[in-house]
């Protein structure tokens, strides 16, 4: 019933829809705070330009936010539609943060976003500023709860298996909340979102600087984004979530795969800057290594080891064998033999039950697995090394590139020399896609790196799906591709249109195209470059 292609297609659909959703989320996280900062500046100084900044960047925020909401709908229900067994098996724990996210975060964010857009004439300045801060708070709280849920998938603490109800059940909500993996992921992810927001504002402001349009507006936006961005990129890099990779077995495996650490080296381990991981020989060809660095980054110490893949494999094979024993005891319990001895024996090994379930892919009865099947199941516990190795390095390279750009932006903005730095302005404009790419890479490292588990060491991905036909899955994938592509086209079209138009989109009469247009009308200029702004105005906003 569970065919390989069914599992692969379910994964494809989830990965597609999640990666797509995650194109819009980081910008919401970052831009909402930038809007709140801009509005605070407006309330404190009373300068009109700050209010215009909130309204204009708010328009772009809205265009992005709409797709964030749209694609988020899918995420809330897709666990049920396509991952029914997962939902049953871990809903007792995983459902809670999702429901709390709705009650605590989505309501806050979504109720106040309406007042943000429509409340300018209905609220006092202070009230409106608070509304904007609450939008930012809401979107960040939603990141907190979804990462508590996701952190639990990586490192499932505070829960245990109940053979009567055939599922994982919560034993400690506090442990789920304060899961160290979740905390580290939260800080890293929201900081990445702040960087995305900052890079977005820097890039588009640079466009106005390059075009020599609306300069005071652009400079002020640039200054806020560069200082906010600098703090954020430092946080992303310094508090990078490598530190979270030492907690729990899945995270250790992920770390070994990211670094293509085939062997366990004496501490502190060297960092492989580049190379070509070879899964066949379990070696990294043409490796360039920097001594000590990996050990320092990963363990924050000079004497703790980073466990290599070969050693992990040995450990995991042992756990698969234990898992067979656990599965055997589990079937006895299910069959009604609930003697204290059986229960005690099961409690002893039930942490390895998940490893036993890995064998379900090869033999439904688990306990009759052959040596080869055990070896294959153990081999499955290591995600593809090359994809992990490269995506991680792309992410980190982008991170450092952005650090350089943002630091320069901050420097020139602070010294008021930014107007002359046309090369930096160009670089920032073209760098707008970078944070989005880095965020997608980060998502890939975290989730592909979790394979073969949907819940680390507890539930294999291939058992987690709904029972669905391959044809149905192709059809739903086609539906998502169709809808999401059409929506993306509309989004990108509007984003370009309004980014090009700039603050003139607000129709306040204070900005470039409006001044030019009224000038050209009164001055009677009919042809030449002056006609263009008029046209742009007529396109309206």
């Amino acid at each position, binding site marked *: 019933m569970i065919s390989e292609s069914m599992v692969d297609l379910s994964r494809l659909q989830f990965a597609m829809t999640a990666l797509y959703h995650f194109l819009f989320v980081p910008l919401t996280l970052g831009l909402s705070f930038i809007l709140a900062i801009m509005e605070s500046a407006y309330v404190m100084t009373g300068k009109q330009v700050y209010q215009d900044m909130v309204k204009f960047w708010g328009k772009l925020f809205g265009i992005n936010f709409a797709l964030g909401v*749209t694609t988020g709908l899918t995420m809330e229900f897709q666990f*049920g539609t396509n991952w029914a067994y997962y939902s*049953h098996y871990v809903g007792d724990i995983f459902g809670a943060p999702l429901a709390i996210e709705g009650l605590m975060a989505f309501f806050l964010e*979504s109720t106040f976003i309406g007042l943000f857009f429509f409340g300018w004439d209905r609220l006092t300045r202070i009230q409106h500023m608070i509304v904007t801060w609450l939008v930012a708070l809401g979107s960040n709280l939603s990141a907190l709860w979804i990462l508590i849920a996701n952190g639990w998938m990586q490192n499932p603490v505070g829960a245990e298996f109940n053979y009567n*109800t055939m599922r994982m059940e*919560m034993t400690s909500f506090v442990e789920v909340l304060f899961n160290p993996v979740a905390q580290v992921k939260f800080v890293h992810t929201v900081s990445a979102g702040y960087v995305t927001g900052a890079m977005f504002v820097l890039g588009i402001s640079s466009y106005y600087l390059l075009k020599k349009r609306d300069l005071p507006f652009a400079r002020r936006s640039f200054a806020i984004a560069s200082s906010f961005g600098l703090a954020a990129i430092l946080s992303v890099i310094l508090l990078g979530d490598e530190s979270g990779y030492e907690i729990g077995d899945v995270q250790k495996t992920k770390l070994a795969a990211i670094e293509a650490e085939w062997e366990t080296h004496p501490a502190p381990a060297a960092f492989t800057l580049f190379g070509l991981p070879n899964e066949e020989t379990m070696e990294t060809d043409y490796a360039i290594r920097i001594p000590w660095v990996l050990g320092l980054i990963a363990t924050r110490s000079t004497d703790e080891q980073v466990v290599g893949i070969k050693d992990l494999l040995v450990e995991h094979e042992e756990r698969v064998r234990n898992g067979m024993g656990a599965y055997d005891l589990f079937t006895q319990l299910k069959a009604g033999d609930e003697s204290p001895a059986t229960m005690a024996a099961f409690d002893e090994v039930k942490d390895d039950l998940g490893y036993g379930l890995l064998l379900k892919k090869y033999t439904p009865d688990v306990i009759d697995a052959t040596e080869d099947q055990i070896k294959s199941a153990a081999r499955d516990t290591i995600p593809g090394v090359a994809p992990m190795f490269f995506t991680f390095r792309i992410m980190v390279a982008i991170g450092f590139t952005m650090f350089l750009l943002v630091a320069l932006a901050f420097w020139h903005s602070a010294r008021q020399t930014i107007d002359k730095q046309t090369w930096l302005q160009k670089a920032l404009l073209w760098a707008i896609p970078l944070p989005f790419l880095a965020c997608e890479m980060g998502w890939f490292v975290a989730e592909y790196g979790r394979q073969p588990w949907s819940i680390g060491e507890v539930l294999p991905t291939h058992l987690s799906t709904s029972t669905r036909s391959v044809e149905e899955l192709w059809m739903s994938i086609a539906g998502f591709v169709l809808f999401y592509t059409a929506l993306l086209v509309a989004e990108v079209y509007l984003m370009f249109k*309004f980014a090009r138009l700039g603050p003139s989109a607000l129709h306040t009469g204070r900005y470039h195209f409006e001044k030019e247009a009224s000038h050209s009308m009164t001055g009677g200029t009919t042809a030449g470059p002056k006609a263009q702004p008029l046209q742009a105005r007529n396109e309206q906003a």
Partner: protein
Amino acid sequence: MDYEVLKLVWWVLIGVLLVGFAVTDGFDMGVGALLRIIGRTDTERRVMLNTIGPHWDGNQVWFITAGGAIFAAWPVVYAVAFSGFYWAMLLVLFAMFFRPVGFEYRAKVDDPRWRSLWDWGLTIGGAVPALVFGVAFGNLILGVPFSLDEFMRSTYTGSFWALLNPFGLVAGLVSLGMLMMHGGTWLQMRTDGALHERARRITVALAVLVAALFALAGVWIWMGIDGYVIMDIKSTAAAVTPLDKVVTTQEGAWLSNYGQHPWMMIAPLLGFAGLALTVLMSMMNRGVMAFVSSSLAITGIILTAGFSLFPFIMPSSLEPSHSLTVWDVVSSEMTLNIMFWVAMVFVPIVLSYTIWGYYKMWGRLTNQFIEDNKYSTY
């Protein structure tokens, strides 16, 4: 609270979320469905959209939170229902995709084709989910073809088209009609002039239609649909799975709750009384009262479905004993407890700032307002 009480409390809480969804998001979906029917000009349609502009997103969170709460409190329902109703669920999602983008993007380009495209999108985004939710409820009353294996993996053997049976469609029309009616009462409160008059007329027509369909569904259940009865269950107080009981179907069983607990009759009565009052108040041009009446009608109709099914949530026509009930689909006692307190703290907070938001945005919107603010409104 002991586990048994907690199970009942969570049936109530999920009910509150579903009613909250229908009363809040229901009117903005209704406005969406009415958009092309009573909004004749672009300005009129913009008036309609701007009355719900500040609120639709917050309202929609009732839907999302209901989904999350079902996941947290009834994981078995979340798994079995959403995977079984796969295409119905995707249809709802695809239709709802049009809403955030429709609201946000429609006014941003001044081109009749562009706006007409989003008008269709918003109509679909309002009407299709309303219809499908009703169809799903109708099919719950009929029983749906699924079974569970010993590992609790579910298999659903029905198809999407099988959901569109006559009774399912009647239930779907009740749902669509009542949410459109609700949207009509909202517009009575928030618009004036010709639009307001049209909203009044269509509200009256829809309320009459819904009353007829609701009565028809009732007679249908009474005369022609077998209900489900638990013959034996291991325990209602302990942790059990849907496999721990024996269920059979029986003629008229869906009405037996009303015999055993006559107070439950309040639900259908509230439904009919609410509909009658909606007609009356719309005719008397009392918009606010019409909206309140319509909200009561919706509450009564949803409660009627819940009371009839109780303690069932999703009966199985394939293996009646595998049916999902309030006793055997719940999370562990710890999770139910934690989530109960979370709800007790946050629902009042959410309600208070939601009400503040409505209070701040209150008032009738006119065509003139849209003309004066055409760059900053939807």
